[in-house]
């Protein structure tokens, strides 16, 4: 037991990866593809249970890291396998391990061909995703960030829909392009740190951050802006922020159900997590300086995503565009730089994982039955699938933020945070923060419009299409699959305190860093700007 708690995060990362190797080995010797889903399900479930041990962790300082490990990796370039978890990543890790068994079970009958490779890629994806959330070394973070692309690329490309090749390649290239710029920034930071550390550089996020906090390492001016954007573009593409969101609808539509669920629930969070963890902490001045750009783009994303979702004929594509809108809310909350807003953003990340994940599962259920997702092919199916319709409606309510369900808490906190925020400032009698909040508020209304309209067209009215008359209601497997998510929706909507409490200290630390601990850097930077800018 001690061994497990001692190396908890490493086990969480490595267990799925070794599981993937074991699957391939199993297939080589026994050639029993039918057993693979059970093995995979078992592995992901065990990983989830192990991840619950995270609750036993205690921080040594408020907002500090738990389960920290720091082992040299490549000494020649001074990069370390430095991992740890804090309030920011805590729930995201658990969300990942929680959503994995569900998505495995969702493929129970959907994936018939090439199961070995499918489950192996799912497991590898889990390793990479957990790695992203826990790594505290910039190079290791980059490594996992990129590594998550390959399994997803295969999942979309091999087991995806009609346009799978186009979507898979687009997904890969969009994300890789952004993250490569980040690599340049990471190496540049290495040398900036070397400049104040006697020529010894480091990729260690904590070390760099401490050097910045203590005022030793000062990055200002144009150089800092470029670095900020190198990180920000990589993460914005992942979020995805308008106008670099175009890969998302394609990837979602063509991914297999499990892929869509993971994509929505976890992969998108890497972007928002990265912005909060790295951009805010490393470049607080620039984060404030450019906040208005992110807020404007987030609002555009909210409204644009909602409007485009409204006219989608395909249910899955509609949900995908609703993701763009939801992630806009998350960005909005983060860039309010208020504790309420940032906590709300973090909470909304989890909510989006739960409710949009559930929506993709539900869409998958009906697709497995009818092999179509066009809204016009349905209508009145509440008559033949009452249980399914009930669950779908509840999930819809959660997604559009009905009180007592989880979505409401997140969106409410975000809007309160934005309202109180001072980041946009006041010109004359116009408080731009109020305007931003009001515009975002319209997004909630739009969300209600497109979701409810879709629900109405799919589930209610008369059962017109004869093919739908024989549809079976949910099976026990499907109920078991969706039930944990339903419970969470209600629980998170009624009692958000335990979630928010866990993340509070870390979020406050970041918020203080981005709001307060910055005045010094500008002053100091002015003393020797030339040297710093050109390093």
């Amino acid at each position, binding site marked *: 037991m001690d061994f497990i708690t001692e190396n908890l995060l490493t086990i969480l990362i490595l267990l799925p990866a070794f599981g993937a190797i074991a699957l391939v080995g199993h297939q080589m010797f026994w050639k029993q593809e039918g057993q693979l889903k059970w093995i995979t399900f078992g592995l992901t479930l065990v990983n989830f249970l192990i991840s619950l041990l995270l609750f036993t962790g205690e921080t040594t300082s408020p907002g500090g890291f738990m389960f920290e490990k720091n082992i040299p990796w490549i000494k020649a*370039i001074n990069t370390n396998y430095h991992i740890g978890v804090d309030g920011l990543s805590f729930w995201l890790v658990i969300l990942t391990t929680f959503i994995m068994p569900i998505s495995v079970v969702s493929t129970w009958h959907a994936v018939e061909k090439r199961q070995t*490779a499918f489950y192996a890629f799912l497991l590898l994806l889990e390793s990479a995703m957990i790695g992203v959330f826990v790594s505290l070394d910039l190079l290791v973070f980059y490594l996992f960030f990129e590594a998550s692309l*390959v399994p997803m690329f295969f999942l979309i490309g*091999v087991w995806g829909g009609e346009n799978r090749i186009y979507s*898979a*390649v687009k997904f*890969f290239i969009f994300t890789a392009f952004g993250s490569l710029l980040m690599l340049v920034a990471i*190496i*540049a930071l290495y040398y900036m740190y070397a400049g104040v550390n006697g020529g010894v550089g480091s990729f260690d996020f904590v070390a760099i951050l401490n050097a910045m906090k203590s005022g030793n390492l000062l990055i200002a001016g144009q150089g800092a802006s470029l670095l900020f954007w190198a990180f920000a573009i990589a993460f914005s593409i992942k979020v995805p922020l308008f106008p670099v969101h175009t890969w998302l609808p394609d990837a979602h539509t063509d991914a297999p159900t499990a892929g869509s669920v993971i994509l929505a629930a976890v992969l998108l969070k890497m972007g928002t997590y990265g912005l909060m963890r790295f951009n805010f902490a490393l470049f607080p001045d620039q984060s404030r300086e450019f906040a208005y750009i992110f807020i404007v783009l987030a609002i555009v994303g909210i409204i644009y995503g909602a409007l485009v979702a409204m006219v989608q004929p395909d249910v899955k594509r509609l949900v995908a565009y609703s993701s763009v809108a939801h992630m806009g809310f998350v960005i909005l909350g983060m860039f309010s730089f208020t504790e309420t807003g940032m906590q709300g953003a973090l909470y909304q990340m989890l909510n989006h994982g739960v409710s949009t994940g559930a929506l993709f599962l539900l869409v998958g259920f009906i697709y497995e039955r009818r092999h179509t997702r066009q809204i016009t092919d349905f209508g009145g199916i509440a008559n033949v699938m009452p249980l399914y319709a009930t669950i779908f409606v509840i999930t819809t309510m959660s997604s559009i933020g009905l009180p007592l369900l989880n979505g409401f808490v997140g969106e409410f906190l975000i809007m309160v945070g934005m309202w109180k925020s001072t980041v946009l400032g006041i010109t004359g009698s116009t408080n731009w923060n109020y305007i931003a909040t009001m515009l975002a508020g319209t997004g909630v209304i739009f969300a209600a419009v497109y979701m409810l309209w879709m629900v109405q067209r799919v589930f209610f009215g008369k059962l017109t299409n004869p093919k739908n008359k024989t549809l079976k209601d949910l099976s026990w497997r499907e109920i078991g699959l969706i039930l944990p998510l339903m419970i969470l929706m209600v629980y998170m909507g009624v009692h958000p305190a335990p979630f928010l409490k866990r993340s509070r200290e870390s979020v406050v630390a970041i918020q203080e860093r981005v709001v307060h601990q910055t005045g010094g850097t500008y002053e100091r930077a002015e003393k020797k700007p030339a040297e710093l800018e050109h390093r």
Partner: protein
Amino acid sequence: MNTILLQAISNPDVNLQAILPETIVAVTGIIVMLYDVFAPKQKNVTTVISLIGLAIAAYFMYSMWGGGPTTSWNGMIANDPLRISFSLVLLFVAAVTILTSTVWSERETVPVGEYHALLLFATFGSMFMASGNDFVIIFLGLETLSIATYVMAGLRKSDLKSNESAMKYFILGSFASAFLLYGMALIYGATGTTNVALIAERIASPTFPGLLLMGGAMLVIGFGFKVATVPFHVWTPDVYEGAPSPVTGFMAAGPKAAAFASFIRVFVIGFPLIGGATAAGYLHESWVTALAVMAMLTMTVGNISAIVQNNVKRMLAYSSISHAGYAMVGFVGAGVAKTPEVRDAAIAAVAFYLLTYAVTNLGAFSIISLVGQKNDRRTEFEDYNGIGFKSPVIAFSLSLFMLSLLGLPMTAGFIGKVLVFRPALEAGSVMLTTMVVVAVVNTAISAYYYLRLIVVMFFRERTTDWSEPKMPVGVAAVLLITIIGVFYFGLFSGSWIEKFVTPSAPTAVQAAK
């Protein structure tokens, strides 16, 4: 002057130990040639002989590590990290190429014995390019390498494409050699010596400053051709496409690395950073600028041309052009380094980069040789349609190599890229930073065509017949070595990087700190 020369001739600084690895390779080549004369029907004996010879040479080369930089043979042979690291890469390339060529032993009648002998002579020449500290040695090494490679490109005597490849390579290669020689002559005219170390000393006060720039430009053209940089790259796709696949793999890894070794030695060490408005200062500034621009062009043109190719070999030819560009990023970084430590680290980074490229590329070419079948008939993208789940070993290995060429983390290519980008970013100048940004944008572009091969193999369905090629033991060994290499260098490259960066007396360096 003449008396010094006479002294040197009458009293040469003979040090056979210093050129032992090269000698072993040459002797092995002669043994292989002789054996092949008496037993022309053999197929695998010369493989074994060559491998043993290369292994012994590698052992002696490896044991030179930690000796500290020295010269011998009156300063003609350098014995420094640059030489040892590049030579080991070259020996590795030769050994893997010989293993790959076992694909021929069963399916076609290529003169294998001759091929092995030529390959060993080419390796002998390329090792002298890495160790040559004198223009004469460098040129001799280059010619030995080139002539052997011209013949290897035309190994399939009855195949038109192979003939075209050899002819093109020969004519354009000779042309480039002439430029190189001319440049060497001009530098000799300016400084009065052909020794790289002496040139570095005398360059601050040359006899004829005007010749320096001219000579430098000629050398850039000559070397630029050999490493296939834009705009001296046009021969590459045709030559690479026409040559037999194992030879193509060798040409992309071996001669390129050798040319980089002497390119770096001549420019970084021979034309060092000298401040002030002198001819030498201007020369340094010019070559750094010229190479930075060439690196950007090479990466961009290479990658964009690779996108539109429909032949896998041609695609990899353009990819090898762009990889020369990435390596040049580190090269330029070495050129602007302010201290010898940083410079050596940058040179080591280039050597390590070429090692990772060699591992990956040779693995890829071993599969292309295997899938290509007799006379490399199947080298179009279409030929790879849907083989992914039919021959998973081949397809997944090839995908791994593509991802490593792309530079995805956890593969060798990633560490290689990080290492060559570092010195350029460390310098902190606008031009070099731009160069790195161009490099990463290019990496993103390259994702398209590397992924295309994966897409074709896994995401498309096969419509025509697919008979899985039988894998000879040699190729299986190559795959094993390269796959392990890709992961090993991608995950645990620490000790090797340290070796490459500080090969000479690491204890002394640590004590000094």
